[in-house]
């Protein structure tokens, strides 16, 4: 009786919301205890802030070659904190605007990759017989094709544009995800509640969408952050090889033009180091967050 007097009675809806908030808080506390994950998050937040605030930090006219008025390939000065490129543009301006393209390509390509990987992983794990086998062979086939030549060939065929590079990275980076989702699906397929779903007359798509997918979701989330890191690296690689969109500046295209003008041999370190360091930092940040998330979402890894 006393308990009822002191604690106000909550409706089930309020209770459920309270529990959900509590579980998010618990997850956040665990994530916060993960030092490298927090470092990664901090780095990522800084980069995302820069990308979003690019118009405030640097005038976009600084990207236009025809309006560039600085000295050519000049070392850092007060006016140009990171020096200038071969057209007399500020490297800092390029770096800030380049972060937008690099992050955008990374995220969009990951989205494509996760959708394809999850679908194929689910189907190949869930359907017995030849359907599952065909999709599994397809995954293996894509897995053993050397990634870079495939991406180069695709990018050449499709042409150089921002959308195409997103598609190229998306359709070449899914096999790892598919394998992961497949193995998880194989284990969940054998659970009793999937058999129950079959007994109630549910079709395979229903069983897959309602019972298997929600249970592999945490894994998909953790894997996403790791895939973003790979996609950003892939964007840099392809742009460096001259397959990026020539009309937009990304960190990869900056490295490409730096290489072309011989920045390495002429000692123009300010043209090469900043984009390189940015790529490394962002990729590292995503990887750290991914590892931390995996530990938070997978109780078995906890406390090791």
């Amino acid at each position, binding site marked *: 009786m006393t308990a009822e007097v002191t604690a106000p009675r909550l409706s*089930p*809806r309020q*209770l*459920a919301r309270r529990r959900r908030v509590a579980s998010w808080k618990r997850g956040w506390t665990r994530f916060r205890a993960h030092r490298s994950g927090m470092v990664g998050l901090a780095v990522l937040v800084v980069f995302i802030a820069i990308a979003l605030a690019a118009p405030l930090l640097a005038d976009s006219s600084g990207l236009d070659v025809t309006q560039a008025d600085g000295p050519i390939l000049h070392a850092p000065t007060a006016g140009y904190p990171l020096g200038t490129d071969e057209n007399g543009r500020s490297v800092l301006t390029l770096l800030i605007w380049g972060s937008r393209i690099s992050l955008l390509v990374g995220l969009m390509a990951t989205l494509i990759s996760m959708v394809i990987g999850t679908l194929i992983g689910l189907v190949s794990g869930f359907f*017995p017989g030849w359907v599952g086998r065909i999709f599994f062979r397809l995954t293996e086939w894509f897995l053993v094709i050397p990634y870079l030549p495939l991406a180069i060939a695709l990018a050449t065929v499709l042409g150089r544009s921002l959308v195409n590079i997103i598609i190229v990275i998306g359709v070449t980076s899914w096999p790892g995800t598919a394998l992961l989702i497949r193995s998880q699906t194989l284990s969940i397929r054998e*659970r*009793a*509640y999937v*058999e*129950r*779903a*079959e*007994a*109630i*007359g*549910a*079709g395979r798509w*229903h069983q897959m969408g*309602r*019972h298997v997918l*929600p*249970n592999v979701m945490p894994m998909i989330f953790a894997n996403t952050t790791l895939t973003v890191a790979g996609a950003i690296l892939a964007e840099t690689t392809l742009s460096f090889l001259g397959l990026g969109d020539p009309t937009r500046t990304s960190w990869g295209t900056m490295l490409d033009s730096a290489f072309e003008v011989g920045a390495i041999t002429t000692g123009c370190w300010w043209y090469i180091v900043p984009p390189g360091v940015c790529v490394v930092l962002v990729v590292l940040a995503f990887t750290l967050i991914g590892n931390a998330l995996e530990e938070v979402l997978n109780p078995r890894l906890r406390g090791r």
Partner: protein
Amino acid sequence: MSTATLLAIRDLHVSYATGEGPLPAVRGVDLTVERGQIVGVAGESGCGKSTLASTVLRLQPPSATVSGEVLFDGHDVMTMRWGELRAVRWAGASIVFQGALHSLNPVHRIGAQIAEPLLVHDPSLGRRSIDERIEALLDQVGLDPARARSYPHQLSGGQKQRVMIAMALACDPELVVADEPTTALDVMVQAQVLGVLSGLVRERGVGMMMISHDLSVLAELCDRITVMYAGRVVEEGPAGKVFSAPIHPYSGALSAAFPRVGDPAARFSPAGLPGDPPDPRNLSAGCSFAPRCPRAAEICLPAEPVLTTHLDDRMAACVRIGQPDPLREPTEVAG
């Protein structure tokens, strides 16, 4: 409602393909369930009870080969087309699974899971009518309707089993198959769950096939009991008689394994049966129970006994029925 027998299993054989050759789990079982009747299936672990249950909805694993007929309302489940089978699954016959603790998906709310069979069979149902149905079902099994918003881990074992029963009743099936519905529960909860289950079955006049290793539970609830051993029916008859006066020695052993109220001696040393059921992969030619049977004799060895009628409405597969007990030979055949 048609007049055909609700469930008629005829000469059913199920064998699993294994690395060491075929494993016959069910060997020629006949079973009938009429509307409004509770039929119990008893036997030890590994004697084919659950395999039998799974064939009713054609849920046996892909490695199983099945012959014989499973007639649901006159239609053979084994040869049905997929669309018909789907209609039979749950709307015609539903299952209360053995492990309620695992048969609920941890990521969905109870209400959503009870609604699932409703939506699978009639996607046009409105939200309101579904909510009302869930409430009514939860109420029927004695749970607070507010529980619909809980997740499975927030319920106790008994509550989860009740949810499974509510789910089994969702589509108003004509037949409910209960596969050891109370195995994982303690005795108090077991009594509650069985009460709920049998009450609902009687109230709605549906047929029920109840599987258990606990002959005393079956004797209490069922109209008729079928006792299985090594994939075959060894005794069939009215529930009370099979339990209190079994005619097959195996039923006798099952029945004697439960201590009776008012018998202190049985309480302290319940009569067990030594040994295990035989490996179905290499059965002997004669009666498969002979190696463990206290009444086994030479006559049991040459051929497997046939199920024959005894005492009007009872059947048993034992050649020694009717033979006086004192004549019993020493049990050297046991080896």
